[in-house]
């Protein structure tokens, strides 16, 4: 079974969300998601400054197999993106919770984070697939 760190929050659509630091969260895709996708070859990230909405598409990852939409976990604004992914999308395969992070969002309403899954809740989602 894939790795699901207990200090992160999750979406049913396989994104992970870090704890809030100065109003900002970091977002990426889970180990389970990268395993299912296979080798990633292309990542399209939102531009810094883009407003994003919870559960709306805001990025795309493409693997050798297929393209997948990435959804924003919360309402807010993109404040930083992982530029290294443009040349090295495989960072997501190698280190999905570390160097493979995708973007950072300034969260509009921090209570939205309470709607996300914890590690146990996400494990159920991943295992049901």
């Amino acid at each position: 079974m894939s790795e699901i760190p207990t200090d992160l929050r999750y979406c049913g659509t396989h994104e992970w969300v870090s704890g809030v630091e100065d109003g900002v969260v970091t977002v990426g895709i889970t180990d389970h998601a990268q395993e299912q996708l296979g080798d990633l070859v292309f990542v399209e990230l939102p531009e810094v400054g883009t407003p994003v909405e919870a559960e709306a598409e805001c990025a795309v990852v493409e693997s050798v197999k297929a393209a997948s939409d990435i959804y924003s976990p919360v309402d807010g604004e993109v404040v930083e993106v992982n530029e290294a992914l443009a040349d090295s999308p495989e960072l997501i395969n190698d280190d999905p919770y570390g160097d493979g992070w995708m973007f950072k969002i300034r969260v509009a309403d921090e209570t939205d984070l309470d709607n996300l899954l914890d590690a146990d809740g996400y494990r159920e989602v991943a295992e049901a697939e």
Partner: protein
Amino acid sequence: MESKTALYEVHKEMGARMVPFAGWSMPLHYGSQIEEHHAVRRDAGMFDVSHMLVLDLEGGNARSFLRHLLANDVDRLQDSGRALYSCMLNEQGGVMDDLIVYRLGDDWFRMVVNAGCADKDLAWIERQARPFCVAVRPRRDLAMVAVQGPRAREKATPLLPPGFAGVVAGMPVFHAAVAADWLVARTGYTGEDGFEIMLPQGAAPALWRALAGAGVSPCGLGARDTLRLEAGMNLYGSDMDEQTSPLESGLGWTIAWEPKERDFIGRKALEPRRDDPANRRLVGLLLEGRGVLRNHQKVFSGAAGIGEVTSGGFAPTLQRSIALARVRPDIGETCSVEIRGRRVPARVVRPPFVRRGKACIDLEGVKS
């Protein structure tokens, strides 16, 4: 429930991610599809292709039967131990399947057809064979392993049964050697040198393990697809099917029009279209903008839709996205492809994209 090849347990043991494919449970990859791809381009990799159907055709009329059944002419196989790529057409000139046919004796031929077409092909071939009194024998007792890459032959040869070593040493491309129930052919589907080996199922696990021990990387269907796409080889069901003719699938070269009196199935339908300037073309595309080409994306010249991607993906050797596309014959040197609502520029190139480890197309001038 999917069928399992003789290597199923070995795949699981070696960490394969198994997926359903044409009614079979097959390895998609053993960890990284891209590393498997590179192993074949740079060294040696092996594929379980036992899901493909091996058919033996035997009888005094086998040769004349195949000259009727196939669009390529088995009379091009002057000696036993030679192989030929051909399409099998329906009466309308559509492609029922593509295959390799081996001549193994004066009255003995062997065909290897796609797994996804196996049942349909067998029914069709048996029906066509009846008036010729040719025996059609499916060889589900055989497994098949493809060993491919610049070091494939050197690594595989010592592991073949005694007697093969001398025979396969200098064996030319598209030749095959047979001993007992083994067949070793210098063929493949990757654009690299190598062998395709048919052998009794019971012997397959030991060969696979011995190849792994010799440093041949196990490779799944994922790498098989990116390798064949780079090699510019068609995939049945994506790049051609029963509704498309070989003339519009980049396969005109496989039709043997001479001698004129050879009456192969599909000839009557195709002959009038042979030099039709309206025939669409199967071309290669190299994506110049960002993104990944995928099957069924629309191809444009200016504002006009001129065709569709039939096989698209990422080419690990080129680090670019490439595709085969069926387009109008008047396509120029550039076009655009609609990727997720955006038009992305692409260059029209002549496949193959990669052969024997080297890029065959000019990547210069491409913006990354």
